């Protein structure tokens, strides 16, 4: 059978997706946050980041704010998170990985989260010299 094609989430996804509690994977955990940026370095203010911590079976979803920022509360000892990115203007979601623990295992330097203030920072760049590596899936 033929695979159903993808379409953009558009600008109004938050009425159907995204609840505040979706950002908490581990209530006692540390913060993972960052910015979703377009090819001009401008924030994408209508994007969604979803992360999945397969070792813990916990999943989360965060819509970006007015500065393009997403945030999660995650397990402090999470090693790698599997991630999807959605946005208006993105006709298909993009698949990536966020390495937090054994960063030597990262497929690319853009997939390593930085440790900062007891948490992690991970920016996502759609284009440009430091564009995030995405995977075909």
């Amino acid at each position, binding site marked *: 059978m033929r*695979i159903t094609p993808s*379409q953009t989430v558009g600008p109004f996804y938050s*009425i*159907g997706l995204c609840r505040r509690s979706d950002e908490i994977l581990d209530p006692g955990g540390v913060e993972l946050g960052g910015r979703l940026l377009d090819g001009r370095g401008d924030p994408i203010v209508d994007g969604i980041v979803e992360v999945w911590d397969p070792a813990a079976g916990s999943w989360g979803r965060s819509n970006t704010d007015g500065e393009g920022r997403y945030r999660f509360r995650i397990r402090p000892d999470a090693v790698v998170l599997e991630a999807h990115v959605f946005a208006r203007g993105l006709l298909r979601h993009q698949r990536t990985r966020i390495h937090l623990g054994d960063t030597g295992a990262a497929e690319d330097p853009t997939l390593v989260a930085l440790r900062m203030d007891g948490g992690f920072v991970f920016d996502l760049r*759609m284009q440009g010299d430091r*564009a995030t590596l995405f995977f075909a899936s």
Partner: protein
Amino acid sequence: MTDPYEGPVVLPDDPSLGPDVQVDYPGYRSTRWRAPSRPLATLPEELHALRGPVFGESTIDPLDNDLTKQHDGEPIGERITVSGRVLDDSGRPIRGALVEVWQANACGRYHHEVDRHPAPLDPNFSGAGRCLTDDDGRYSFTTIKPGAYPWGNHPNAWRPAHIHFSLFGRAFEQRLVTQMYFPGDPLFPYDPIFNAIRDPKSRELLVSRFDLATTQPEWSLAFEWDIVMRSTPFEDEHA
């Protein structure tokens, strides 16, 4: 910033692209700075069989699949049911899949602060629903038919009427966000989002089918729409 693109809003068909949507489709202007510029990497093989999150019955409220019953009064518009099956590409049902939908009201206005289309909001319609597929992979929503609406992509740009769908299957890679359209919409040839799927046979997969057999007399029109995702090792398991 205004983008300098002056080319056609809709490009000619290109069946060679199959089910893939062209992510850097120039007629949809927002893709210009947002479509990924780096070539995609190959996902490590073992990740294709990685399980994804399981959303159980506790995720769902009883009225979540009836968008006409979420307020005190009934929403204005044509009452419809939209139902179908979620399948893998060998035809097996994907059971227990979370299906989330959102849509404009009958006038083409979203219940969202960013939507400035000067059409009325309907106090009896929020436009969001969710359900889980059953053992046959079947989902069903009762709602009202959404209206077409204008957007700022190009002069006199209008979106064909559509319902947004988000799906989670059993594997993490079984993730799909798409839009379902209605048969015979006159706006199809002008919409760059629909036509970013450049294979016309693949585009047709997003168009629902009117179904007289399940249309309820004196009550609601029925539209059927099946959704197909790539197969994984998990479809033979029971939910």
